[in-house]
């Protein structure tokens, strides 16, 4: 084979064209594959935030001034989510009609805070974050107060508005 075969002005142009055509065809094929792959992976980000009111028990279950753990189903768990389809929250009955719900996720790195009722504190097991009963930071590295969820009372039931895992 003579590598210089056709190496005149028109031959050089021909090769340039074929080179570009090949690269273009490859890029086109790659794009066709990348579109569904990338789209599929980022689809969860594009879906709007789903929120749903979830009942966590009748009002009479909760004593005034007590903070207890409640758990409820996420907004729209996939059928195979199993136990991970549930979220927990710390719920306190402030008065006859008032409730406050705190996210269990420490605002430092998301570890589960525990309510220590005698001390009136939320404490995190990971890096030593501590919060007061109103969710404000009492000690340690957390940058923000505990996130709160909306709570309402409907037909004698306490309901919590599901929300995304708080990312601080």
């Amino acid at each position: 084979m003579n590598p210089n075969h056709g190496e005149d002005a028109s031959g050089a142009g021909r090769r340039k064209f074929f080179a570009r055509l090949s690269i273009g065809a490859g890029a086109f094929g790659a794009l066709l594959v990348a579109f569904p792959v990338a789209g599929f992976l980022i689809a969860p980000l594009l879906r709007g935030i789903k929120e749903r009111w979830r009942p966590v028990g009748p009002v009479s279950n909760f004593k005034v001034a007590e903070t207890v753990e409640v758990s409820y189903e996420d907004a729209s768990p996939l059928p195979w989510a199993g136990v991970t389809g549930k979220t927990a929250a710390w719920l306190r009955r402030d008065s006859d009609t008032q409730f406050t719900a705190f996210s269990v996720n420490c605002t430092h790195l998301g570890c589960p805070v525990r309510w220590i009722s005698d001390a009136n504190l939320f404490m995190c097991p990971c890096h030593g974050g501590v919060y007061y009963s109103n969710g404000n930071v009492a000690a340690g590295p957390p940058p923000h107060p505990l996130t709160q969820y909306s709570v309402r009372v409907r037909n004698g039931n306490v309901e919590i508005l599901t929300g995304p895992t708080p990312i601080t």
Partner: protein
Amino acid sequence: MRSVLKRVWLWFDDRTGLSKALGPIMRHPVPPKSGWMYVFGTATLFAFLVQVATGIALATAYNSSTGEAYKSLEWISHQATLGHLLRGMHYFGASAMILFVGIHMIRVFLTGSYKFPREVNWLSGVVLLALTLLMGFTGQLLRWDQGGVWSTIVAAEQAGRTPFIGHWLARFILGGQTVGGATLSRFFAFHVFFIPGLIFLVVGFHLYLVIQNGISEPPKAGRPVDPKTYRAWYQDLIQRRGVPFWPEAAWRDALFGAGVIAGIFVLGWFLGAPELKGPPDLTILKASPRPDWYLLWYFAIMAQLPHGSEAYLILLLPLLAAVVLILVPLVANRGERSPSRRPWSIAIVIMIVLSVGTFWVAGKHSPWSPDFDATPLHAQIIGSSNSEVVQGAKLFHEKACEYCHTIAGQGGQRGPDLTDVATRLTPEQMTIRILNGAKNMPAYAGSLQANELNAILAFLKTRDGMSR
């Protein structure tokens, strides 16, 4: 029979040209006396191959469904034939990979092997280091027990600190708004397909560069690298004194690699992988997530960052580490290679090993975490029958003081040991501290009654360090 096999091989080799293509690569000349310092790269590769083989075996039984993974892991660990050994080998294979990738990097740094013309060897190694750590993180998460599921949240929170796109990244990691059905399959696909695929590619490139640029000769003080003359000098060296890689140098790699695999096997058999820590139920809040040993030092750094700075440092620290590692061969690609002429390289390695080691030990003890298991103080420790003192000791436990303060060896370590606090602080100073708190201590002004405070003070006033 042998002659038949030989004829088959000759036919196959003739049609494929394999020995003609691979023989020269296997026998490519390498500098003499490369020695035992050069085995850690292949040791890492061998550990990776153990991971591939044991990982494929585990994947045949692992169920990557968020709801079922834990059950399949319990079955693999406790019922499946050889499942315990496989999980153990996969765990210690990961440990070996991380250990040897670190040792290999230290060796290359100390002997200046990253210098001209091997800068890209080093850079591709940095990529492999990052991929190895990512494999370690995603792997411990696939255990999908309590630790695993909380790790995904910790990962999402950290990614969430990225400016502008943080929230998107966090949702991308979780596969949605919360941990759920999509989360685990995502990590599974990354751990099993995507990252290993990248590792194969980059390892191939890394090995190609080792052949292309040649194995660095053992350094000698007073023989600096000069990019103008090095290549010609190296060619001359291996032409005059080079020995064939196979088997003159390869035997050490093979022997050490086999030793590594034997170590992985023995540890996997006798110690096994970490026990599963309960189902991935995010409503069980009595969880204390901890990373596996190879990331404990990072966990400790996260606890020790100065308050307020961590929002930035969480991202800046890894970024800074990456930039420094990338800059190493770009700013220092010439000159002396011998560690004896580069004392700073030794100092830097000692400093990094000591820092990581210190953080590692700190992570193991994690004194900043409250000791939720602290039990009420014994009468013997209280050492008084005064009812107010006894009441104060009871409150010391109930009000969670003991979770963070030690008395007579009992309690948490977040705050100062209060065994002899009465010799250091007056009751007034104690009162101010208890009511106002400090950076790492809650203020109790809002939650203590006057009589409770008095009881705690009465108790603390008896803490003079004398054993009772």
